[in-house]
């Protein structure tokens, strides 16, 4: 029997993988990908909670939809920034984006 814990565990694993990707990759686009995985795992959680805790109220679904919307916006903006930086620096490596330090 598949229970809530299974889904949560899956989501946790996916989140960790996404975090690993977001933290340990050089390319900015890859970082964005990692963040997408993290958002997806959050969505799994939302839907799973909804399914197992309050199935009659689809609040979890609604929130998942909002997360998807935000993710779409985030990717659009994120990629635009990446391209914009690429134009200036001819690089998409996150390590190079340290103008804000000091």
């Amino acid at each position: 029997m598949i229970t809530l814990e299974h889904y949560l565990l899956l989501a946790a694993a996916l989140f960790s993988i996404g975090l690993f990707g977001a933290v340990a990759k050089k390319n900015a686009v890859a970082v964005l990908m990692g963040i997408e995985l993290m958002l997806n795992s959050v969505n799994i959680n939302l839907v799973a909670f909804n399914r197992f805790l309050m199935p009659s109220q689809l609040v979890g679904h609604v929130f998942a939809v909002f997360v998807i919307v935000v993710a779409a916006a985030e990717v659009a903006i994120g990629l635009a920034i990446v391209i914009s930086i690429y134009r200036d620096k001819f690089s998409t490596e996150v390590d190079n984006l340290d103008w804000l330090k000091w």
Partner: protein
Amino acid sequence: MIENAWLIPLFPLIAYVLIIFLTKKSKGISVGIALAAMIASLIVSIGVLVETLQKGITMEAPYQVAVKWLNLSPVENITGLQIDMGILIDPLSAVMMFVVTSIATLVIIYSIGYMHGDPGFSRYFAYMSFFAFSMLLLVIANNFFEMFIGWELVGLCSYLLIGFWFEKPSAAAAANKAFITNRWGDFGFMLGIILLFINFGTFNFTELSQIVQQGAGISAATLTLITLLIFAGPLAKSAQFPLHVWLPDAMEGPTPVSSILHAATMVAAGVYLLARGFVLFQGSPETMLVIAYIGGITAFFAATIALVQRDIKRILAFSTLSQLGYMVMAIGVGSITAGMFHLTTHAFFKCMLFLGAGSVIHAIHDQDIFNMGGLSKKMPITTWTFVIGALSLAGIFPLAGFWSKDEILLVTHEAGFTGLYWLATLVAGMTAFYMFRLIFVAFFGEKRSDHHAHESSPVMTGPLIVLAVFAVFAGWAMVKMGYGQMVYFGHPHQAEINMGIALISSAIALFGIVLAWLIYYKKVIDTDVWAQKLRPIYALLWNKYYIDEIYQWLFDHVMLGLGWLFNQNDRKVVDGVADGFGDTIRHTGGLLRFIQTGSLQNYALVIFGAVIIIVLLMATPVLGGVIK
């Protein structure tokens, strides 16, 4: 018919959408759509008016339909923010709708001639339709919120239409001015209805009136505050002193716009609001006093300015201000019957006056009355309709203006505001004087400049004639039909004609006309000489009491001066202290800045590391860990 009243605002809205999105390129179709929609609205509103009268729908027992629109209650059964979209039909709104739709129809017909050949032809009609929609929404609303939406939309339309020729810098500036000035009032209005909602838990007019009449526990001070805040709306929208400054400038828009928005309907929305919410105002005598006096002051003050203006539209604009003051005053003294009566008659004849002025401007492309002269021969229809309008405005028996103005004077007198009564009577005289100054200078006498005036086309003169008929008969007809039995508050009331008051006001008005005739037609008195002698007063009036300048000065000195003060304080005092701290901290921070690596991933690592540590800490029994 009455159940289809919701169609009245809908037709213009459809027209607007169609014109803007589909037929903008085709002028003919756009006009056709706008006109057809207005006529449809007019027909429905006549039907509604007739049915209202027949079915005996009264102010106490209005017809009301509402649909739930927005329900922001957090939980079922607990009252939260619930907003309805509804219609409220009582004689007040029925009459008002008839006024709006009929005038709008006529103005649209008139505009076909006036706007002919303008590049923004279709856009104009789209805006007009949208205005009609907004205004009708405002009128038909059954709650404050809906009304506020209409209120803001008419403001928007006003902005768009004043700035219709946005390529003209003065028009753009005037539009901005109108918009910004109105923000003051609208802000107050909004605060007022929010406060209202907080206190009463509803926006609905009927519910409000029930609550108030049952004497729900609410302190008089609160009610005064609410009503004063709400009154800020009319103050700006109906251009009452001291927020009147935008209206004269609003004359930058096309003349039909001035006619419908800034004379007949939109500016009267303030009065309508006062009438609508009278149940609240009447609960606060202080507010009533403020309203009455502001109305009276505005009436007088605007009339004096109108005495010396040269621009035909500005004279009419100040006249409008003055008459709006009358209406507000009438409501302030406690008679919505008189106020609304004057609103109705005024709408017809002032609209006509503006349209006549538009006809003149259209013919000679000049607005200075001293550049006109001798138009009566060239433009007979315009001239004679204008004269009828002026007579009506001056309150000459038996024209429409006589009845309504007399009503106001009467209620003022009866309410015991003697000072205001005399002021109003004086204003009546001044009104007659400046109107006939305008007529004698512009239409009679010799031709003063090289203009080739010609009578306007029938599309333009037709509405003039129709309105002239209204201006002549409306007042009498409404008195006969028992206006007081229709629009009232509390109990039906209409004062019988008091011969004394009627005679005094008529005499003063006639005196004004004669004076104008002597000065400007017969030239018995040399105006220049008098202008020289009364130089300071003339200058004061010519510059509209320097109100604009005062506002500018206030802004320049008070606001900027305060700003300067705060700035100095900030720089010298606060910064001095802060810098002291800052220097200390900066040096400390200089050491800490090295943790700012600038690497996003580093930050992310730190954040999640911190999360892990916090969870671990919470899990350990030392800190009373929550997790077993």
